[in-house]
């Protein structure tokens, strides 16, 4: 806080003024415009009143020193006598100062002559402006004036305006024969001067304070401008009172701006105003995130605005100061961090699920699984592998497990060191449950560590014996079936062959007897004839299977289908059977065309017989490519809309002498069909629904030539 100093012009010290018509002292003192002019004027007035000499002792309220400030007619050498300090209680001058009342010091007390000592103190009759404004009576000037309390020179700072008071003492040498009245007049003059001095002092105090404030404001302004963050001072209506350069970048419209940026600035202002309002409403929370557009760079930036209300000295809110922090990078980093965290959590969840799934899989594989570390040491085994190798933690193993483990370790060691990522090898291990050595198919894979080194190997052991046994059983069963079929066929053929010649004779004999049969015997003769023909058909069918009169060669199955249908066309028309064909482009199949023709004609005739009242016969063919380019199948579908085959019969229709046609059928058609398809390494199947129809499916293998 500024301190008013009592200054005086040294030029005037001890100076004489040219004699002029004297004006009353009051008016002369009023001429003073500055506080330092008061003491010289006062000393001149005192001398003018006829006192020989006078001086003013100034009290430094900080140091307590009391030193001469101005003197008139007083020899310089004598002034030192009066220098003292407030703590020197015995000093006559100090006593007067503490008592705060004028006193006449007798001759010799301090000086060779009697002295009039008049202490003066900053005092005013009226409250200072500040005390007046805040309606308090505790104004130091008034207190000093009214002398309500004992004046304490150590405590001369105003509690309201913080103004530091001044204290001084006017010392006047009294001439011989001084009267009390004249001394009283002198006192009044000094009080008057003090009153002027106090007023000037107060004005100067306020002036100094204003100057200090200006400096402070300038300093604050510099601080504000030098801040990199935007700082904005707004009034209660959110109008900008003041903003720093950083803020102008966003909120002030420079002249040379493009229209787009002007709009950006307007938008920024709008956003800012809205944020201020919301902060004001919410009261406690004075943080807001704001996205503003940089009017110069045109970039979007994210700010955190922190606002605080500004209050006047009277406690009334004047406005808001807002400091904005550029958190673009911070928020981006924060966002990235959060994103990364989320990703991490997701990944963790995935890993957890994977692990659970993996555990589940391992538990349910049904094959022994062994996980080894990079040094071929077992770290994980499933229950099945435990039987073979013992648990991963057990040190004590029985000899069988130890032997198995040695074999496994040898294999894993070699695999770990090899360059292969995976390997399959046979491994003979002793199975304690089966009490025998079993060949396993050991399939191993590597799990690599970060630096590409083998961290783990996973080995799945498949019991090949079981697999092979199943495989062999399947083959055996199939062989047996084929053998059975062939044996049946051979037997049938042998029987047929043996029956054939007698049959031929009987048939011929019946033919020859035709004309010799009496009329009454003709029904019997007809039975004889038709039944013989039936036996002949059976024999013919049976022998037909073995009449391999044709070589196999590449044939398009579609032409065989077309030939067969052409041959049977009239029969089908007569039976009122509508034929639909969907024949796709087929590769040639290596087949015996005659036999396949017989297959087709047997199936077509069966279809016709299944539809006594007519119906639809659909024949489709298509090529089914195999897993490689080379192999594949030709598929033939023959479907009728006939009576269907009862479920209880469907298993036996391919057996010999099974027929749905009663007397008319030989029961050999489908048996022959099956035989022929089997001879071609083909597949034959049937689906049927009673009342809806039957579909035969034939797959013949084709090989790309």
């Amino acid at each position: 806080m500024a301190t008013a100093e009592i200054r005086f012009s040294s030029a005037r010290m001890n100076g004489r003024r040219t004699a002029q018509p004297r004006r009353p002292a009051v008016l002369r003192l009023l001429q003073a415009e500055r506080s330092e002019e008061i003491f010289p004027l006062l000393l001149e007035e005192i001398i003018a009143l006829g006192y020989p000499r006078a001086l003013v002792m100034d009290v430094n309220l900080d140091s307590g020193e009391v030193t001469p400030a101005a003197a008139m007619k007083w020899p310089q050498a004598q002034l030192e006598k009066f220098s003292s300090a407030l703590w020197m209680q015995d000093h006559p001058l100090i006593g007067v100062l503490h008592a705060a009342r004028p006193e006449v010091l007798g001759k010799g007390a301090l000086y060779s002559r009697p002295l009039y000592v008049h202490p003066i103190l900053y005092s005013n009759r009226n409250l200072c402006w500040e005390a007046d404004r805040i309606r308090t009576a505790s104004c130091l000037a008034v207190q000093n004036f009214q002398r309500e309390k004992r004046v304490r020179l150590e405590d001369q700072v105003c509690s309201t305006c913080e103004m530091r008071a001044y204290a001084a003492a006017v010392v006047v040498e009294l001439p011989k024969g001084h009267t009390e009245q004249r001394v009283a007049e002198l006192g009044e003059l000094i009080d008057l001067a003090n009153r002027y001095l106090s007023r000037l002092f107060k004005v100067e105090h306020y002036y100094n304070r204003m100057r200090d404030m200006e400096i402070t404001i300038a300093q604050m302004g510099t601080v504000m401008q030098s801040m990199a963050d935007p700082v904005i001072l707004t009034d209660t209506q959110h109008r900008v009172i003041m903003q720093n350069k950083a803020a102008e970048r966003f909120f002030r419209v420079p002249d040379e701006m493009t229209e787009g940026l002007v709009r950006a600035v307007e938008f920024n202002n709008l956003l800012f105003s809205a944020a201020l309002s919301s902060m004001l409403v919410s009261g406690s929370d004075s943080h807001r995130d704001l996205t503003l557009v940089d009017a110069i760079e045109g970039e979007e930036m994210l700010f955190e605005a922190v606002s605080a209300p500004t209050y006047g000295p009277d406690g009334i809110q004047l406005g808001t100061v807002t400091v904005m922090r550029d958190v673009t990078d911070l928020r981006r980093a924060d966002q990235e961090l959060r994103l990364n965290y989320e990703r991490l959590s997701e990944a963790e969840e995935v890993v957890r699920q994977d692990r659970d799934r993996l555990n589940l899989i391992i538990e349910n594989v049904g094959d022994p699984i062994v996980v080894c570390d990079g040094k071929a040491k077992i770290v994980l085994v499933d229950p099945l592998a435990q039987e073979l190798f013992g648990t991963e933690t057990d040190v004590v193993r029985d000899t069988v497990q130890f032997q198995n483990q040695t074999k496994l370790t040898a294999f894993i060691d070699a695999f770990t060191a090899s360059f292969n990522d995976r390997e399959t090898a046979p491994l003979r291990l002793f199975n304690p449950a089966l009490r025998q050595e079993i060949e396993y198919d050991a399939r191993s894979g590597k799990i690599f560590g970060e630096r590409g080194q083998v961290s783990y190997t996973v080995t799945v052991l498949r019991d090949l014996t079981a697999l092979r046994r199943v495989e062999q059983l399947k083959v055996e069963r199939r062989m047996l079936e084929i053998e059975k079929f062939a044996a049946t066929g051979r037997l049938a053929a042998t029987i047929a062959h043996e029956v054939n010649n007698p049959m031929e004779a009987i048939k011929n004999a019946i033919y020859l007897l035709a004309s010799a049969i009496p009329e009454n015997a003709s029904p019997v003769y007809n039975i004889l004839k038709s039944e013989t023909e039936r036996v002949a058909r059976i024999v013919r069918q049976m022998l037909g299977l073995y009449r391999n009169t044709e070589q196999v060669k590449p044939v398009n199955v579609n032409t065989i289908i077309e030939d067969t249908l052409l041959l049977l066309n009239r029969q089908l028309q007569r039976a009122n059977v509508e034929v639909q064909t969907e024949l796709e482009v087929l590769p040639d199949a290596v087949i015996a065309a005659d036999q396949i023709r017989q297959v087709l004609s047997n199936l077509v005739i069966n279809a016709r017989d299944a539809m006594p009242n007519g119906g639809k016969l659909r024949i489709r063919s298509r090529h089914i490519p195999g897993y490689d380019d080379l192999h594949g199948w030709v598929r033939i579908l023959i479907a009728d809309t006939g009576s269907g085959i009862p479920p209880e019969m469907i298993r036996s229709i391919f057996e010999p002498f099974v027929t749905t046609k009663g007397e008319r059928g030989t029961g050999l058609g489908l048996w022959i069909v099956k035989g022929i398809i089997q001879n071609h390494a083909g597949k034959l199947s049937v689906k049927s629904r009673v009342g809806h129809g039957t579909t035969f499916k034939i797959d013949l293998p084709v090989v790309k030539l």
Partner: protein
Amino acid sequence: MSADRKYRVLVVDDEAAVLLTYQLILERQGYEVLACGTSVQAIAAVQNERFDVVLCDYSLEEQHTGFEVISAARRLDPEVPAALLTGYATKETADEAANRGIGVMFKPIEIEEFLSTTSNMVRRNNESKQEGGEKAKPAPQNEHQG
């Protein structure tokens, strides 16, 4: 050969009953038939006589085959039409028959087929002979029509 002579058929089968019925059927059809029960008999016959057609069972007594009989017949008359009557023929047999221009009829043989095949063979042979300047009467008709 005279124009109105009967066509001569040689039938060979080791089953007597079958042989007899073939003979009777062919005779009823108007052929002159020589029936032989063994290959020996048949070969002896073809060495002395000419036939218009030879119908011969494939498997004869003691591993003899119809091929032997037909070969013997063709030594005298290389153009003579011939057919094997058989219940069962291997692929080799069928191939050989085809190569040598010998027909195959599978037993049981439909009588209509039997007669039409026989008459076709006779007629075809006759026509090729006619081209060589000889006149032949048409082949006998089947007794049963349709």
